[in-house]
C-alpha cells in the first residue's frame, strides 16, 4: 500500500511533465491540424537552455530566485525557437496538403537534434542536485517510507501554476478567444478580423514556452540531459495528447498524468524494460475502444 502510494507520487510528478509537453502538441493540432513532430525536440532545447541558464547563474544567485530566473530565461529563448521553427518550416506550408508539414516537421526534428548535438556535444550533461531535500509523509508497518521530494513538490506546484495561467489565457483574454475562434473555423475567424497568422504563431510560441517549463523541470528532476531526450519524451507526450483526445487542452493534461502513472506503475510492478510497451499498448487499446480519446470531440464525417 505504502509502495503503491509512493508510485502514485512518482507517477503524478512524471505525468505533469508529459502533460506540459502534451499541451503544446494538442494546441497546435487543434489550431493548425498538424502533428508538430519537432515539439519533443523543442522540449529538449528548453532543457539545454535551462542548463545553460543554471550554469550562468552558478555562484551568483541561488535558491528559489535562481530557479525562477532560469525558468523565465528558458521560456523566453525556447519560445523564440518555437517561433523560428514555425516560421521556417511550417508557415510556408500553410494550406498545403496534409503530409507536407508532417515531413517538414520530421526534418526539423532531425535538424534540432543534430544542431544541439553539434553545438553542445553528444555526451550526457550531468548537474548536481539543485533542489535537495524532501518530506517523509509516513512510514508503514514494514518500515517503508513514503516521501515527496522537494523537486517533486516543485514540479507539481510549478505545473499547476503554469497551467492555471495558461487556462486564464485561453478562456479570458482576447488572444485566447482568437485562438479558439481560429481552431473552430480559420477562414471565418479571418473574415471577422482575427489575425490568423499571428494567432497561429502565438500558439507555437506558447506551446514552446510550456515545453521549456517541462524541460527545466525535467533537468531539475533527473539531473542528466542529452540531445536525444526529446524523442522519447515527445512520443510519450504525443501519446498522452491522443489518449486525452487530441485538440482538448484538459485532455492533454489528463492523458499526460495517465501515461506517467501507467509507466511508473508498470515499471514498479512488472518490468522496467517494457514500460514503453505498456504505454503504447494502452494507447492502442484506448484508441480501439474510444477512437477519439478520453475527452475528444466526436468527429463528424462530412461528405
Amino acid at each position, binding site marked *: 500500500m505504502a509502495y503503491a502510494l509512493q508510485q502514485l507520487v512518482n507517477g503524478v510528478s512524471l505525468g505533469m511533465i508529459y502533460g506540459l509537453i502534451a499541451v503544446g502538441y494538442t494546441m497546435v493540432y487543434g489550431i493548425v491540424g498538424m502533428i508538430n513532430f519537432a515539439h519533443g525536440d523543442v522540449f529538449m532545447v528548453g532543457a539545454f537552455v535551462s542548463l545553460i541558464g543554471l550554469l550562468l547563474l552558478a555562484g551568483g544567485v541561488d535558491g528559489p530566485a535562481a530557479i525562477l530566473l532560469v525558468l523565465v530565461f528558458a521560456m523566453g529563448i525556447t519560445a523564440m525557437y518555437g517561433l523560428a521553427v514555425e516560421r521556417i518550416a511550417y508557415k510556408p*506550408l500553410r494550406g498545403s496538403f496534409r503530409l507536407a508539414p508532417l515531413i517538414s516537421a520530421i526534418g526539423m526534428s532531425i535538424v534540432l537534434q543534430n544542431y544541439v548535438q553539434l553545438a553542445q556535444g553528444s555526451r550526457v550533461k550531468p548537474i548536481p542536485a539543485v533542489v535537495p531535500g524532501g518530506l517523509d509523509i509516513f512510514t508503514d508497518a514494514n518500515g517503508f517510507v513514503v516521501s515527496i521530494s522537494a523537486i517533486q513538490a516543485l514540479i507539481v506546484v510549478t505545473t499547476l501554476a503554469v497551467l492555471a495561467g495558461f487556462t486564464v489565457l485561453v478562456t479570458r483574454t482576447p488572444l485566447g478567444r482568437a485562438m479558439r475562434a481560429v481552431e473552430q473555423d480559420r477562414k471565418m475567424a479571418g473574415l471577422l478580423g482575427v489575425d490568423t497568422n499571428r494567432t497561429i504563431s502565438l500558439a507555437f510560441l506558447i506551446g514552446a514556452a510550456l515545453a521549456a517549463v517541462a524541460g527545466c523541470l525535467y533537468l531539475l528532476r533527473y539531473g542528466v540531459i542529452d540531445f536525444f531526450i526529446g524523442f522519447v519524451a515527445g512520443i510519450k507526450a504525443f*501519446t498522452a495528447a491522443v489518449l486525452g483526445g487530441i485538440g482538448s487542452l484538459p485532455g492533454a493534461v489528463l492523458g499526460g498524468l495517465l501515461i506517467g502513472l501507467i509507466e511508473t506503475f508498470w515499471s514498479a510492478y512488472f518490468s522496467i524494460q517494457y514500460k514503453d510497451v505498456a504505454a503504447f499498448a494502452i494507447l492502442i487499446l484506448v484508441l480501439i475502444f474510444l*477512437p477519439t480519446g478520453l475527452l475528444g470531440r466526436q*468527429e463528424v464525417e462530412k461528405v
Partner: protein
Amino acid sequence: MKGTALRDAGIAAAVAACLFVPIVGLRTEPGQTGALALQPRFGLVALLVAAVFFGRLVIIGWHSRRRPAAGTKPRFVLPEVGRYAAPALLGFALLLPFFPFTGRYELDIGILVLTYVMLGWGLNIVVGLAGLLDLGYVAFYAVGAYTYALLAQTFGLSFWACLPLAGLTAGCWGVLLGFPVLRLRGDYLAIVTLGFGEIIRIVLLNWTSLTNGPNGIGGIPRPSFFGLPFSSGNEPGSFSHFFGVEPSSVQRVVFLYYLILALALLTNWVSIRLRRQPLGRAWEALREDEIAARALGINVRNTKLTAFALGATFGGLAGAFFATRAAFISPESFTFNESAIILAIVVLGGLGSQLGIAISALVMIGGFELFRDFGEWRMLIFGGAMVLIMVLKPRGLVGDRTPTIALGARKTIDAGLISQGQG
C-alpha cells in the same frame, strides 16, 4: 524597398542572435573539477548571425526579382521527361556493375540506394496508393530481417527458402497491425503505427533469449547463387569453380546488387500491375474519399488489410535482404529514424509516383553518402534538405498525376489540383 529589406534582415539577425547565443555561444563542457562549465564561443555566433543577415537579404532579393514573372508559372515537366528518364535510369541500374568506374564502393552505395528504393515502393502501396499514413514501416523491415536471421541460424534454411517465409511473416504482422487500426483515421493511425514500430523494436531489444538483445545476431549466412556458394577457395561446387572464373569478393557484391535490383523491380511491377486491377483502384478510391468508396460498395476492411499486408510483405523481403547482406543485425538498425527516412522518400518523391520515389531515394540516400566526409554535419544537412524540399515543392518531386484509367484522352492532373490526403 531597400530600407525594408535591410530592416527585415536586421530583425532576422537579431532573432538569430537570441537563438544562437545560449546554445551555440555557451558550450557546456566538464571543467577541471568535473562539474560542467561554460565555454564562450561568441566569434562563432557572430559568424552565424552575419550569415543569417546576408542569407535573409539574398532571399528577399530573390523573391522580389521572381515576383513579376508570377503570371506565367513554369510547369514542372517531369512526367514528359519521365517517359525517357525511367528507362534511362533502369538501363543505368542494370549496367552499373559493368561501368569502368564502378568499384566495390559504388556497388555498395548502389545496393543501399536500391534497398531504400524498394522500401519506398513498398511503403508507397500503403501511404501513396491506399492513403494510410504509416509511421512504423521499419517494424516490418525488422520482422523480415529477424525472421531470416533466426530461421537460417536455428534451422539452417537457405536464403531462397527463407525469403518467401520472411515476406509471409511480415505480411502476417501487417494484417495483425491492420486489424485493430481499421477504424482509425489520419493522425490516430499515424501514432498507432509509430507505437507499433517502437513496440517491435523494444521487444527485439529486450527478448534476449530469442534475439540476443542489443548485441544483435551475427554470422548470418550469406546467400548462394541458386545453391552455388560464393567462396574464395575455388573448391568444387562453388560459384567460381562451376563457371570456371577466378574467385573474387566482387562477385558476391555484384550478385547482391542484382538481387536487390530484382526485388525492387518485383515490388514496382506488382504495384504497377495492381493499380490497374480492381484492388488497386479500390485503394486509390479509398485514398481519395473513404466514405464515397464505402458507399460505392468497396469492402473497406479487406481493401485496407490487403494494402497493409502487401506493403508489409515487401518490407519483410527487403529486411531479409538487409540481413543477408550485412550478415549482422541488431535493433539499432530499426529505429524510428529509418521509418521517417522511408516515409520522407515516399513523400518527397511524390505520393504514388514510382519514378519520383526512385529519384528521391537516389537523391536522399546517395546524397547522404556523398556527405560522408562531413561526419556529424550530414544528418543536419539531411534534415535541412527535407525541410527545404518540402517548402519548395510540397507535393514532392513528381506531384502530377495521370489517371490510371480514363475515358478518352488521359489528362495529367496538376499537383496543385490533387486534393487527396484528407483521410
